[in-house]
């Protein structure tokens, strides 16, 4: 009994780490640039395919391919901000919504065209291995993914709180106009924010590859969870998104264990509604940081 609960919590935390990487990206973009990036899931998908081809063509381990996918997607993020998003930033939200949504559709269908709808997996030596502790087991691939996800989140937190650029990003997220008056170049800050968010999506893709299949629609699975986590953890709050993601992973896992195998998401959404009823701004309160 206790063992089953413990196992369910472990499973939930491990997958929650992946949700966190996607949701931190979404919340960072929302906090700093004030747009909702509907295409975030598609960048996870691109990260997965990059890792897949690096693994199958050059024999690079998917986890190691992080050092390629993150910089590549960082550059993609900067380019997207500079050439696309910058042009639609204005008082009206609609163009921004259409832009990121269109980007999502475009990337999805491009992937269908280029890679077909086939599922692609990478089989690493540790893909099917697990540590066994008493009656519990911890899959190696997921443990690595979780550990790297937590390290990246911590690195991001340190970056936001100690470096000038990080502080400038937080300033821009608190008040864009005043930040501009203080000499912060908003486009530069936005470019970095997009870059970091997409790099995290790329990291999520690489970390997923040893234990999940890549296919064009794969981003949609994760982006739904990311949006819930972003709202649950207060829009724009990086730490809130991280904690909310882990909570959701655990809630989903416990829901499957004790409510019904098709009720995992039900429990997650019940948690979201209850939280919003008592804390309308999410777990992080009103503050974005």
């Amino acid at each position: 009994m206790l063992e089953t609960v413990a196992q369910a919590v472990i499973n939930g935390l491990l997958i929650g780490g992946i949700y966190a990487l996607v949701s931190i990206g979404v919340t960072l973009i929302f906090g700093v640039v004030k747009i909702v990036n509907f295409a975030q899931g598609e960048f996870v998908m691109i990260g997965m395919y990059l890792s897949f081809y690096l693994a199958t063509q050059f024999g690079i381990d998917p986890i190691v391919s992080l050092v390629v996918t993150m910089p590549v997607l960082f550059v993609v993020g900067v380019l997207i901000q500079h050439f696309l998003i910058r042009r639609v930033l204005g008082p009206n939200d609609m163009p921004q919504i259409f832009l990121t949504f269109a980007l999502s559709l475009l990337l999805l269908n491009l992937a269908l065209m280029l890679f077909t709808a086939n599922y692609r997996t990478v089989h690493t030596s540790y893909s099917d291995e697990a540590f066994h502790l008493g009656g519990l087991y911890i899959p190696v691939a997921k443990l690595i993914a979780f550990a790297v996800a937590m390290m990246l989140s911590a690195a991001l937190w340190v970056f936001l709180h100690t470096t000038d650029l990080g502080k400038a990003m937080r300033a821009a997220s608190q008040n864009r106009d005043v930040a501009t008056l203080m000499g912060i170049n908003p486009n530069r800050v936005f470019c970095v924010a997009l870059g970091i968010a997409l790099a995290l999506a790329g990291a999520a893709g690489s970390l997923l590859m040893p234990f999940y299949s890549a296919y064009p629609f794969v981003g949609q699975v994760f982006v739904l969870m990311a949006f819930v986590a972003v709202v649950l953890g207060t829009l724009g709050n990086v730490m809130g998104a991280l904690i909310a993601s882990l909570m959701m992973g655990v809630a989903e896992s416990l829901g499957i264990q004790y409510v019904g195998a098709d009720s995992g998401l039900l429990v997650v959404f019940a948690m979201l509604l209850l939280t919003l009823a008592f804390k309308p701004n999410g777990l992080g309160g009103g503050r974005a940081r």
Partner: protein
Amino acid sequence: MTKDRQQSVLNNAGSNDASGATPILSKRQSRRKFLLKASGVVAAGAFGAVPLRGWAADPVNIGALYPTTGSMAQIGVGCVAAAKLAVEMINEAGGIKSLGGAKLNLILSDVQSDTTVTRTETDRLITGNKLSAVHGCFASALTLIASEVCERAKVPIITGSSSDQLNKGRTYTFTPFARASQFAKAQLQMAKLVGDKPKVAVIFENTAFGTSTSNGLKELAPGEGVEIVMFEPYSAGFTDASPLINKVKASGANALFSVSYLNDLILIVRTVKQVGLDVAINGGSGGFVIPDFYKNVGKLAEGLQGVAHWNHDMSDDAQKVNAEYKKRTGDFLFEYAGGLVAQTFMIADALERAGSADPQKVREALSTLDVSSGYAAMAPGGKVKFGPDGKNIYGHPVGVQWQNSDLASVFPKEDARAPLLKT
């Protein structure tokens, strides 16, 4: 204006010998003649094939509804390749002889893995073309809708989809292969062959396919002497199979029946291995019996059992078609695609006997179909004859097992090509 000019042209031509006017006139006339002649030549060229084709009888249109985009695209594309192969085989063998050697003309439509699109596409296909019969759509949820549209339009549809609902209150729907409820029986009997006291955990995706298959398992288990210790629907397309397998582990099952499509099943099989759970897995049909399963799971697939309504090694004819398909696509001919080759030959058989491309007459001929040889009889057991509910009265599934990276027929004895291995 025109009249004036024509008149003046005539006048000029008739009475005036002025050398300046004549070349202009002749130019005008010649241009008109040229246009007339040229258009005649062009038209003759464009429709030149018509009389020829008319002599060789009009082609017979067959509609094929498969999802070639969207989440089921990977299977839909394979189905289309098989549908084309089947039509080529029939046409190369001389077409429909009773219709003067008429060729089959395959009209493809993409139903995009979506129920709404399936409805509009089926409608469009039927109203836009003179169809003699339709086959499709792989997923039961889609076929149920296409079948409704075909019933209303009075065009026969023949399908490998397994939902028992397709046999209820329908007169234009034909199902030559095993039904979902029969799959269940075969799975239970196979479980008894590999284990003494099977305690089965049933997990199934919460879709039409998953629910109908698993309900069959639940109903038949007591009669077959198999105990079901867990019976759980799950939401298809999950991110992580661990919580589900954690639940299976807690149930104390020694056999696992998973009714799932490919991606979920890959995660389930991998997770079972990670947990170190010792269960005999029966992956059912769906995502389990396609080449991609082995490509993704690799050696972990060895020894896993499943059931199918068709398998590429079960008869000489099936092996012949399989060889040709493999040459074209590189993969073996999987369950659904193989079945639809047989279905195309059943349609051809009906057309041959009906001597007409009229869909109602084709329906009549299908309802009296009775074959036990040739490509149309490529079904487990090797016989096809439809009952009043459109069900093949000889229909039954074939039990399969992954052995040496190939899917071998292992159950029942009459269809087995390899022994069922205990793992």
